[in-house]
């Protein structure tokens, strides 16, 4: 069964449900839909971006209460006429409120390490819950009643039968939009957030902003669920928006498979039904009233995270394989940057120092790279080469010294600012988004060359640009010799090819200066020769390369200039033929006997 057939079957089942099911089961299905809507947001937030929130229930509550107040309070929109109290007017109000709250909460937590957001959301979830219970205007613990149903084409959706369609239309819309988003320029940046932030920043992704966007999207989906909830129940009180509800939402995502949008649907269905059932059965079993289903729930959650952190989705996905994907070969190539004239000073490093506590990793290093030149940076392990790369690319700030790139002083500037000037790098330990395909990983490098954002991606308004970005990625993959299977997950490539993929990604950025950190490590002889040829042709095109490499023959044969580092200092520099005869180099490299 293909995914298309499966999706069509699901849609048909949902359409037919109002004809086949009774009100009780239709209500249950509506609740599953609302829960799924929240869980889809958590998939994006937790599964994909590696952030998490225990406070989604508070956003749901916020949506429910905001719409309830807007549509029932005589004070708010009376002056505007009766149309103003419509749930359809309340929806954008609700969403804006949730967006504001999410932005505020995100602003204080998202720049910090990953666990501050969940902790912040626990405090937020508790506070808002107490607020709902204590505000007179919100009816205190008794809540608000008399909320109007949602009108559609003059028809009030007052029964579960009528509401079912609305709920699932919204849910499926959110699922599709989220899937579209993940398969786009913005989506690739989002998928790099979990564990790849440093790399993504080097490719020009504003990761703090992307984290905020993801949190915002998740919060607005939760608020939409709250809006649906208020107008379905026609009554709200604080109970369903407690911290525990927030934990349940997260569990739905974890059970279903927190990495996949459809998994959220499966998880929401399973957890909602199981909880309902346990709530009926357990009190009879135990013989007293209480939330005993939560014991089972908590233990089940621990078990799932221990046994199957990927949730149920991988099991389902095996039965429904994804359709094969194609690349559009006809997309026009992206515009290229004008390379600086050959021989122009491109990179000037002056007396750079970088210390880590008592260790001086880079100690007064000066070097320069001219346009159209390959400079080899060699030296034993621990000589400070990778640290120097970090300083040049903005990953680390130098303690002293200056770095000039195309005439701009860039020491201490952000990675993104440096990337914008045309510097792109690879990493000593390949930094790939392992679950993403090779071509998408490469396309991450072209992030700065596209403009389309989250909204365009969600509604597929980005396809023309997307084809050009993927086309560029495919070209660069082909160039480094990985063109055979562009959709293969990057994590399944052998280590040497992962490094080549890093090179392809860097080339996608269309840099004028390429910083390569041991690109030839793990390559076989023929692959090394191909890489050397590639670097040579890049040089002919006017690109400059600063190359860290341990394979001496590779460097001697390729570089125009060689800089030798040892213990953080430069011990020799010049054309390869001279440097390789320098006695200090021979000693550092081969030991004294050479």
């Amino acid at each position, binding site marked *: 069964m293909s995914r298309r057939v499966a999706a069509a079957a699901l849609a048909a089942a949902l359409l037919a449900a109002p004809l086949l099911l009774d009100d009780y089961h239709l209500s249950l299905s509506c609740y599953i839909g609302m829960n799924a809507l929240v869980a889809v947001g958590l998939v994006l937030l937790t599964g994909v971006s590696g952030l998490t929130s225990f406070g989604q229930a508070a956003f749901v509550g916020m949506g429910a209460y905001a719409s309830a107040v807007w549509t029932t309070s005589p004070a708010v929109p009376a002056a505007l006429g009766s149309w103003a109290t419509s749930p359809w007017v309340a929806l954008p109000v609700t969403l804006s409120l949730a967006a504001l709250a999410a932005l505020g909460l995100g602003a*204080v937590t998202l720049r910090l390490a990953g*666990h501050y957001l969940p902790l912040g959301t626990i405090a937020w979830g508790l506070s808002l819950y107490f607020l709902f219970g204590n505000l007179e205007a919100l009816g205190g613990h008794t809540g608000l009643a008399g909320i109007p149903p949602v009108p559609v084409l003059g028809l009030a959706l007052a029964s579960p039968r009528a509401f079912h369609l609305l709920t699932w239309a919204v849910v499926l819309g959110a699922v599709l939009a989220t899937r579209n988003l993940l398969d786009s320029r913005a989506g690739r940046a989002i998928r790099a957030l979990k564990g790849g*932030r*440093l790399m993504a920043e080097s490719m020009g992704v504003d990761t703090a902003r992307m984290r905020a966007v993801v949190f915002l999207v998740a919060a607005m989906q939760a608020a939409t669920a709250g809006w649906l909830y208020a107008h379905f129940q026609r009554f709200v009180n604080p109970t369903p928006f407690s911290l525990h509800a927030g934990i349940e939402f997260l569990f739905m995502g974890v059970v279903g498979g927190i990495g996949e949008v459809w998994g959220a649907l499966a998880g929401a269905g399973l957890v909602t039904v199981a909880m309902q059932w346990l709530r009926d059965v357990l009190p009879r079993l135990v013989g007293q009233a209480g939330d005993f289903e939560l*014991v089972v729930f908590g233990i089940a959650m621990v078990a799932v995270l221990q046994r199957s952190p990927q949730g149920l989705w991988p099991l389902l996905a095996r039965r429904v394989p994804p359709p094969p994907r194609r690349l559009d070969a006809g997309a026009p190539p992206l515009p290229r940057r004008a390379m600086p004239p050959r021989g122009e000073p491109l990179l000037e490093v002056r007396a750079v120092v970088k210390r880590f506590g008592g260790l001086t990793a880079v100690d007064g290093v000066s070097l320069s790279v001219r346009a159209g030149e390959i400079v080899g940076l060699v030296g034993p392990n621990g000589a400070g080469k990778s640290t120097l790369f970090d300083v040049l690319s903005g990953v680390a700030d130098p303690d002293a010294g200056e770095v000039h790139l195309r005439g701009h002083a860039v020491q201490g500037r952000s990675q993104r600012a440096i990337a914008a000037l045309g510097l792109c790098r690879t990493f000593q330990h390949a930094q790939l988004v392992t679950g993403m395909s090779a071509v998408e990983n490469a396309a991450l490098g072209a992030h700065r060359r596209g403009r389309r954002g989250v909204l365009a991606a969600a509604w597929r308004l980005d396809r023309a640009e997307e084809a050009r970005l993927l086309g560029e990625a495919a070209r660069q993959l082909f160039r480094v010799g990985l063109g055979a299977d562009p959709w293969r997950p990057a994590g399944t490539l052998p280590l040497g090819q992962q490094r080549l993929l890093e090179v392809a990604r860097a080339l996608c950025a269309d840099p004028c200066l390429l910083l390569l950190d041991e690109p030839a490590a793990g390559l076989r002889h023929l692959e090394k020769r191909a890489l050397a040829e590639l670097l040579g042709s890049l040089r002919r095109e006017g690109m400059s390369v600063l190359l860290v490499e341990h394979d001496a023959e590779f460097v001697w044969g390729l570089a125009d200039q060689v800089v030798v580092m040892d213990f953080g200092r430069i011990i020799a520099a010049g054309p390869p033929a001279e440097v390789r005869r320098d006695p200090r180099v021979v000693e550092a490299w081969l030991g004294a006997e050479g």
Partner: protein
Amino acid sequence: MSLDVALWLGQDGLVNGAIYALLALSLVLVFSVTRVIFVAQGEFVALGGLTLAALQAGRTPGTFWLLCAAHGAVALRDGAAALRAGSARGFGRSLLFHLGYPALLAPVLWLAPLRSAPAWVQIPLTLALVVPLGPATWRLAFEPIAGASVLTLLIVSVAVHLALVNLGLLSFGAEGVRTRPLSEARLSLGSVAVPAQAAWVVLFSAGLMAALWFLSRRTLAGKALRAAAMNRVGARLSGIPVALAGRWSFALAALVGAASGVLISPITTLYYDTGFLIGLKGFVGAVIGGLASYPAAAAGALLVGLFEAGASFWASAWKEIIVFGLVVPVLLWRSVAARHVVEED
């Protein structure tokens, strides 16, 4: 506000703050050793108070059955591991300890006249019942995924909280309890009479905090624990039993939690779910301290206590909102101070 009110609020804030500080410290300790943000720490506070109250009321505390269940589960897991490894070495010892320990406690619980026993019998027995639940929690919930990300560990931690708090409800019911104070005396603080128990709380907390600090900073065992936190592989290569680090830190956390529960149960009514809020306030204190420094965490927690006392006087309905809202400016400040992108593990 009169001086009396200020004095009263000040001592109230100090007493609560001392407990929060204790919990904050143990949160920092557990986090720095295991990278687990132990949200369920507060449950041990509730279990400590409820267990002591049950002993004083002459009932068998439900904690005993929790202990049996948890130890049984650990023994089962060890048994399964022994089967897989094809060797029973170590399993016999595990079986002996995990089943023998509750078996030793059982006659004491059923035969000894605990109801009329003095506090120096009841309190150690309470700790003996509650504390082993800490290492058992580690073994069952966290040890199998000790290398997972902080985020996954946090989700597990929240799930453990959910299970434990409702197990507390199952074993103790929903009624609130108070225990007998260590002494009925009252101290006069100016014109305000303060229960002596309040002084006990502050003294004991200060002592325990000093002990914790000494343990982790000044002893070899403490240094080994911290080394295990920074680099598991490196610590293991240096001969530190990394697997034990988790158990010990969870035992300490359970001890601190249960002791806090015992200390405050004479002055605060404890319900099965009170612990969570108390734990979270300790946690707010720890966050104020940046989840890293002991003195900063303790100071942050004291601040939370004083703030809470003030809030409960001026706007008691908003008390919780104000206390949890405290996190926001703190996070904002830390956020402004953070410059570079941090890569998470």
